[in-house]
């Protein structure tokens, strides 16, 4: 067996996985602050990618300025989503909230291409496309940058949740009524978490848009991202990092060997199996919190 092939699959899988983490981070940020599983994150990534494309590709602003404008735009988009959709759902059963985010996902998936055309737009972040070659191993440069950004965002999130504001957001995810009782504005906390998810969507949208073009297929990233958050634990930032690596590597190595035998398509099977097996054997994921039972 070709050892070099395995290494190449592993490294590129790991980098892809870190880019999945970037998408998954938005889901965890929201869950960790408000206990809402956000199934609209795939569409938020797509909208973010469209925004970057509009600013950079269509209007021709320099890429860094375009990214910054997209960050501001998506932060506001997230806050508005909370203000006009989620806030109405306070006190409703969680299944209603899940359905709402799913509805939002479909709506956005229709609106983006509907307004801007279904043809994929190419997004140029000004990155060097030449692969990096170490020995005989080819590493995709875009994936490397994306992976590093993914790891950096995870690191930033970890730091953020240690701050005073971050602690308040964690408190909100723990117990809404108690948070209210000590003067934490639950609505504002949830709005901030949606804004942060919007920001992480820009990072994910820009990287994935650059890799595979900007069109509705970006919303399909929800699927591996859900696998990452389920495996890592819905409320664990560490989990996003580790599970992202696992999902990425397994989703690269296994298809690398099995695809030629069965004709392709095993990556989605691997991802689905990860979701199913995690839910069966470790429902709260690797790092997710269990509800505390005091003895």
């Amino acid at each position, binding site marked *: 067996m070709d050892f070099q092939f395995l290494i190449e699959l592993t490294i590129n899988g790991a980098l892809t996985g870190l880019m999945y983490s970037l998408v998954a981070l938005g889901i965890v940020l929201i869950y960790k602050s408000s206990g809402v599983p956000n199934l609209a994150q795939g569409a938020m990534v797509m909208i973010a990618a469209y925004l970057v494309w509009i600013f950079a590709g269509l209007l021709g602003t320099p890429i860094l300025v375009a990214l910054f404008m997209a960050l501001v735009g998506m932060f506001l988009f997230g806050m508005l989503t909370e203000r006009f959709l989620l806030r109405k759902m306070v*006190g409703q059963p969680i299944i209603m909230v899940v359905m709402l985010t799913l509805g939002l996902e479909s709506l956005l998936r229709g609106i983006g291409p509907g307004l801007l055309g279904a043809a994929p737009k190419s997004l140029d972040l000004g990155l060097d496309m030449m692969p990096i070659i170490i020995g005989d191993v080819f590493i995709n440069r875009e994936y490397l940058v994306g992976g590093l950004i993914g790891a950096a965002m995870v690191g930033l999130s970890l730091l953020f949740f240690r701050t005073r*504001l971050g*602690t308040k957001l964690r408190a909100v995810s*723990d117990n809404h009524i*108690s948070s*209210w*009782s*000590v*003067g934490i504005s639950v609505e504002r906390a949830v709005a901030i978490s949606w804004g942060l998810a919007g920001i992480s969507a820009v990072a994910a949208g820009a990287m994935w848009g650059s890799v595979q073009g900007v069109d509705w297929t970006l919303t399909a990233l929800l699927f591996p991202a859900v696998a990452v958050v389920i495996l890592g634990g819905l409320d664990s930032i560490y989990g996003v990092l580790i599970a992202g690596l696992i999902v990425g590597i397994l989703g690269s190595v296994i298809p690398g060997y099995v695809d030629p035998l069965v004709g392709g398509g095993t990556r989605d099977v691997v991802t689905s199996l990860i979701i199913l097996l995690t839910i069966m054997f470790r429902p709260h994921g690797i790092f997710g*919190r269990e509800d505390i039972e005091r003895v």
Partner: protein
Amino acid sequence: MLTSSNTAVPLRDTAQPLLELSNVEVVYDRVFLAIKGVSLKIEQGQMIALLGSNGAGKSTTLKSISGLLAPERGLVTRGNLWFKGQDMLPLTPPKRVAAGLVHVLEGRRIFEHLTPEDNLLAAFPLRGSRQRYQELREQVFTYFPRLKERARTKSGYLSGGEQQMLAIGRALMTEPDLIMLDEPSLGLSPLLVQEIFEIIRKINEEQGMSVLLVEQNATAALAVVDYAYLLENGHVVMSGEAAVLRENPDVQEFYLGGAGKVDYLNVKHYRRRKRWLA
């Protein structure tokens, strides 16, 4: 209606009471009338108990003050609520906390997945200075030294007493003028209840913080408070100085386990209905 005495609450220098409820009525789900015109006052620095049996409306009264009725589809449909002369009813719960009143919920409800230290930090205002945070935290640890020992364990693993202490300490981080405690004795041993009540009294005396204590455990509560209100079936049926209430035969009978223990179920129920609920 039987009112134990007409002695007014002793007025301190301030002209208006710190908190005043007048004729407050709360309806749940638009149909269920939970409290039917409750009026009560707390002066600055006073420690007051609100006593009554299960379902009398004690917790509802507290929630109407702190604004935490909304998540349970409750609404104040009538009456006034003044705190430091300010109308509280239009304010959201966080704004009421900022105004200086804080509610320690029944059953503790600490942030289980956070450490005690983070529980305290979460309750401290975002704009407060770091130095003030440390001062307040040290103060909480002085009142409740046990919390300091366990400052870094997940709060969900603390014992019931420690969780209650944390819930109180967390409320102190908001620097309230009035702290409202809903059944702090729930599920705790008598010794621990006494310890916690003594600490509350100490906070009341040292900080001049007003306390509104809701209790089913009337014996323990009447031993520490200045003044008490008795709530039955959504009405205030009696109020008075704690010392006076302790001697009142009805209070002794119904709450302190005094006379009339024979045929407990029928007699007590009947007599209470006859005297107060008719």
